[in-house]
């Protein structure tokens, strides 16, 4: 739950109002200016309708240098960030040849597989030599190699479901599966903070969409009861299918889903559960199998389990795991399987190898060490930041750590000041988060050492004092015991 100081809320609204007013003035004068000058596009319709690009032009471009920074090395714990400069107040940014070595607090590198790994990389290079970089085909034409078959078995085993299907891109997995499993006459009930891929997939399916309050099982039950009683809009016939879509760890809050309660409610009202484990698979749970293992939910109770390989496995792509019949059906109907290029073979090999490391099947205990390290790192950093007075969201054990910033001016201030001290953070603002709740999101990795975390704490504390985001009173440092403070008078 986010607790915001009242004065900060007022000043944040006022700042956005001021930015909005300035943007409108500049647009107004730009319109007069352009009407004065003739344009060579007479008769063509404008590309953007009305105010559609207002936010991009007048708010986002002002602080564009904080987003989309190009990097010049693998996204390990330390990486090279390319320096950029701008001659026209951030409207266009030009790259320089200079790079700065920064601490990486932004990549989704939960288990440290993003850089070269002693077990995975030789095997990936091997598969690159054997299968080449792309299958150059869809799965149904010529793009199913032995690696793909092995990968699907491996993923199904790892997740705890009878079978799985793998796609080349994580976003597409959600937006191409939802239209296939539900259509017009069905009902999708999704958490209010679900990812854009789920929202797009739900809109594309044609089903009716209802939203329940984030992570509130009682509100989910209320919405379910209301919708089942009312039936389809206008005809009031019973719904053909009801799917409840939730995420394992919410990427902007770092919170875990209240899965046991939600699964119990869905069983009671006979709705299907679709769990998106993009951030939690491989990162939480005793053996890394995600929120089901962490919260003690039987995987047979979750009907469709979806996840991505970008976060914990250091690769790309997404998977859907479910019953044999479901996966067979998806292989016949899903456009991402029938028409999209299959996942690249080296990427598939990386996933297989990293799953082997996590499970300890490579003969070492590195997997268990990584899981323990990421848990320790996240708990350490979160408790230290909270002691300093920052408002940090997220549950314990969650590697995603948003630090609240709120005011729009603090977003570029925090980002740029941290970069000056060689710490790279990702800041997120409207419209990815609600207007009031801008934040800097830190992603902890198992490859961060204790020194890295201490450096991060020092830099964030300094920058936090400078920018003014320690909204809670700091806990006092431990007092020295009396008797040890004697001053020797020599």
């Amino acid at each position, binding site marked *: 739950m986010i607790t915001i100081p009242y004065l900060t809320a*007022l000043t944040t*609204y006022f700042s956005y109002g001021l930015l909005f007013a300035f943007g409108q003035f500049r647009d107004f004068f730009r319109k007069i200016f352009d009407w004065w000058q003739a344009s060579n596009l007479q008769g063509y319709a404008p590309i953007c309708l009305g105010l559609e690009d207002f936010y991009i032009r007048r708010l986002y471009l002002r602080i564009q240098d904080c987003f989309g920074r190009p990097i010049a090395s693998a996204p390990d714990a330390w990486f090279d960030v390319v320096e950029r400069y701008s001659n026209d107040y951030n409207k266009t940014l030009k790259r320089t040849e200079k790079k700065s070595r920064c601490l990486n607090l932004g990549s989704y590198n939960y288990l440290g597989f993003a850089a070269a790994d002693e077990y995975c990389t030789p095997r990936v290079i091997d598969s690159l030599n054997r299968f080449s970089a792309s299958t150059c085909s869809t799965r149904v034409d010529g793009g199913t190699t032995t690696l793909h078959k092995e990968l699907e078995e491996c993923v199904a085993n790892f997740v705890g479901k009878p079978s799985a299907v793998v796609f080349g891109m994580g976003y597409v997995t959600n937006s191409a599966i939802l239209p296939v499993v539900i259509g017009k006459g069905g009902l999708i009930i999704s958490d209010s903070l679900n990812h854009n891929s789920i929202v797009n997939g739900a809109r594309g399916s044609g089903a009716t969409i209802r939203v329940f309050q984030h992570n509130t099982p009682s509100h989910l039950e209320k919405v379910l009861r209301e919708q089942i009683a009312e039936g389809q809009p206008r005809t009031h016939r019973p719904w053909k299918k009801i799917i409840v879509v939730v995420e394992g760890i919410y990427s902007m809050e770092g919170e875990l889903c209240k899965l046991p309660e939600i699964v119990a409610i869905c069983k009671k009202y006979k709705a299907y559960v679709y769990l998106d484990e993009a951030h939690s698979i491989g990162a939480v749970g005793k053996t890394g199998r995600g929120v089901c293992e962490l919260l003690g939910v039987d995987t047979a109770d979750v009907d469709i389990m979806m996840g991505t390989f970008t976060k914990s496995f250091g690769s790309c792509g997404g998977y859907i795991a479910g019953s044999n019949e479901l996966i067979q059906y998806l292989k016949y109907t899903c456009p991402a399987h029938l028409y999209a290029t299959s996942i690249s073979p080296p990427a598939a090999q990386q996933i297989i190898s990293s799953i082997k490391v996590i499970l300890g099947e490579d003969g070492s205990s590195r997997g268990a060490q990584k899981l323990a390290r990421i848990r320790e790192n996240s708990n350490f950093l979160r408790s230290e930041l909270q002691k300093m007075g920052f408002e940090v969201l997220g549950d314990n054990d969650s590697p995603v750590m948003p630090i609240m910033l709120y005011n729009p001016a603090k977003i570029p201030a925090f980002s740029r000041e941290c970069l000056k001290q060689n710490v790279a953070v990702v800041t997120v603002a409207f419209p990815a988060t609600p207007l009031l709740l801008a934040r800097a999101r830190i992603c902890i990795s198992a490859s961060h050492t204790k020194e890295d975390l201490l450096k991060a704490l020092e830099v964030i504390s300094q920058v936090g004092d400078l920018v003014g985001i320690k909204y809670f009173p700091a806990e006092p440092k431990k007092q020295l015991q009396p008797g040890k403070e004697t001053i020797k008078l020599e």
Partner: protein
Amino acid sequence: MYVRAEPTTDLNKNTEWFTYPGVWSTYILIVFFSWLIVLSLLGTSPGTAWTIVHLSHFFVTYHFFHWKKGTPFADDQGIYNGLTWWEQIDNGNQLTRNRKFLTVVPLVLYLIALHTTDYQLPVLFLNTVAVLVLVIAKFPNMHKVRIFGINADH
């Protein structure tokens, strides 16, 4: 000192900021401070300052609440392109708390403007026209109504 910011169920990013705590106070404080600024910069009587604030409030809120349609970003794929901001808030539900508050504010401003100008005739007329237009635009029966096709979609 601290308030809780609960996430809402409103999917429209253009209007969901209005459901968080602190918006009403910010609105009232902006109106009050703009009266102080008008009073100090133009040096008129308090009544004229309130009339100026009331009329500029009318122009600004009419333009942004009831004239401009759509949202200032493109990633909702234009599903609200035919609706003004007033028609978008609270998912189109009428007579919610936010809507009642936003209807009361121009009325209160109107009463203050009239009282401080002693109900003199020329400004009385202007203020009354402003408040009538604003309040009629906020009626539930005016949802998605475009009089004489003004501001309708293409």
